[in-house]
């Protein structure tokens, strides 16, 4: 504690070009505190293990990239993945096909709620296993209602299906009028020509507005660095699809863009043991989805009243 000088004779004033003892002590105390507070506030940076390289930091926006830029970016992603997982992935940037608009149909009469689609999706799309990220939630609903407030998605019965219930898997509905795209402040998510709403994981700032805007709770946030066992990495990757994500970015179902834009069916459809999932090009009148929407009696879009106009249709038969 610096006391005011009581004996100015014994404590002569310092020469005018030097600070007084009091002001020196005060300034240094404030400086020390300020530095300590600054250091403490920057401490979380010590936990950051994924500093962006200059290359990634200066990367252009997806829609502004030339093919040469994209080649460089894909090579960088392949290098980073190989460094992290010891496996050289096949990363591509697949563009939408002309005359194709994807539609998903799900038969609620057939779905038995076995959740195999959930885990096939995790395996295909390189989602984090621990912490867990799953794009599909299977809701267990009592017969005779579509009130999602009554749904249970933690069900763990010995066997499925249980009598008196039906099961409704919910994932990204690939809306025609997507609220998540409207709220993104940096245009890191947008709707492509074939109807898939995609995310550029390198452009996302992790503000989670889109998560709040989505009425289907279809978007997932990487709160920590995702962890995938090396032997479970799927090396068949797409830039807008299943390439490994970083901490602090959003992700969601993209209709398995790395498969569907190469002409294949999505992973959740291929594994469904009951054949409840149907996928295809709605612009092709001979596709399964066209047949279903044309000929099946009832089909619903989940939360139709939100005006999102999903490309994901639930229907019943029998």
């Amino acid at each position, binding site marked *: 504690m610096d006391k005011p000088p009581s004996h100015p004779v014994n404590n002569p004033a310092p020469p005018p070009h030097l600070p007084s003892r009091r002001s020196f002590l005060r300034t240094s105390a404030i400086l020390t505190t300020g530095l300590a507070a600054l*250091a403490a506030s920057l401490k979380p940076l010590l936990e950051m293990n994924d500093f962006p390289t200059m290359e990634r930091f200066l990367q252009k926006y997806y829609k502004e990239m030339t093919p040469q830029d994209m080649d460089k970016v894909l090579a960088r992603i392949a290098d980073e993945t190989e460094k992290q997982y010891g496996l050289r992935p096949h990363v591509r940037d697949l563009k939408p096909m002309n005359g194709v608009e994807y539609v998903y149909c799900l038969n609620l009469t057939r779905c038995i709620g076995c*959740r195999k689609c959930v885990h096939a999706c995790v395996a295909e799309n390189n989602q984090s296993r621990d912490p867990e990220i799953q794009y599909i939630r299977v809701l267990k609903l009592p017969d005779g209602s579509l009130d999602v407030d009554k749904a249970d998605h933690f069900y763990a019965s*010995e066997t499925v*299906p249980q009598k008196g219930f039906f099961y409704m898997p919910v994932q990204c509905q690939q809306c025609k009028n997507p609220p998540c795209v409207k709220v993104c402040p940096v245009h890191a998510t947008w709707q492509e020509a074939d109807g898939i709403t995609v995310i550029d994981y390198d452009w996302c700032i992790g503000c989670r507005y889109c998560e709040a805007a989505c009425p289907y709770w279809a978007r997932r946030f990487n709160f920590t660095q995702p962890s995938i066992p090396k032997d479970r990495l799927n090396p068949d990757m797409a830039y807008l699809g299943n390439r490994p994500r970083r901490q602090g970015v959003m992700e969601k179902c993209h209709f398995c863009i790395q498969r569907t834009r190469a002409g294949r*069916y999505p992973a959740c459809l*291929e594994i469904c043991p009951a054949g409840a999932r*149907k996928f295809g090009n709605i612009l092709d009148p001979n596709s399964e989805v066209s*047949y279903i929407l044309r000929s099946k009696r009832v089909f619903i879009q989940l939360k139709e009243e939100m005006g999102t106009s999903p490309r994901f249709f639930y229907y019943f*038969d029998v």
Partner: protein
Amino acid sequence: MTAHTKTGITTAIVCATFSALAFAFWFDSGGTHLHRPAIPLVDTNFLDKSTTRKSYADLVRAGADLSDFDCYVCHDKKSPPPLRLDTNQAIIVAAEHIGPTTFAADDIGTNELTALMERLRAHSDPVAGLVWQRVSNTDHLLLLKSDLSLAQGRDIVLAALNKVVAEPCIYESERFKGIILDSETVVHLQQSQTGPNLPHLNRLLLEDAFGLPRNRHADIVMGHGQHGRNNNCYNCHNETNLTLLQPRDGRQLTFAQSSQLCGSCHGPTKADWDAGAHGRISGYWDTTKGPIERKDCVNCHNPHHPHFPPRRPAPGPHPLREVTVADASPPRQD
């Protein structure tokens, strides 16, 4: 106290407080990470894309042993096998098509035997407890010995299992809680709790409880339709040539064409299947890029009891805390 003193004291207190806060923040006191149990990797069984059954066409493609489908090894080509009905007009399936009722030495492989013996030693689950009771006291001691040879163990286990098979129906809902019964067992459970097929039912129950393999072709149980009217083998099989199938319009179809036979009765479903709207599909939706793979009716449905069997669900999302059903679905006041 002068103004200088006050300023000094205030500055000192503020500096000390903020330094202490900075110190605490740096050493992260009170900011520990939430402790949660590690999330296990999902069982690879749940990532298996194979179909529930193998169709005849699959077996031909795989070059598998088709001797099971060679009907005329046993049957006479000249006379169609007669059908026998019980008093309820339900068909009596010949014993040869039901499979043996007692367990034989080569029914249980080494791995299954080891697992079964472990479960008997523990006899903590009700089914293992039941079988354990049928083992004699001297054999109890033998089973508990660590130097027991597999052949000896097999003899003891087989004797105990066959004792259980010969008993009255062993099914009790409490005893079989948590065991997934095969659809065939379920049909048998409805039809054979008494009567000549009871030993077979007991055997199926034991097979389901201990996960023992099953001889698929020999096991035929009639459960096509819940009305019980489709009970004539020759509704679908051709009586003059047992290697062929025969819809009511008189066409003759091979086993590989069985889907057309199914379609002769299940017309709307067949129309959906033709359009790709019913049944499993894999491969390429864009047929210019690659082939589309269709599955047959019998890849998922057993023609003798076609109801889709129940199964164990894959694990759901792991909540950060214990979730009760009440949390997950709060009661609504409407």
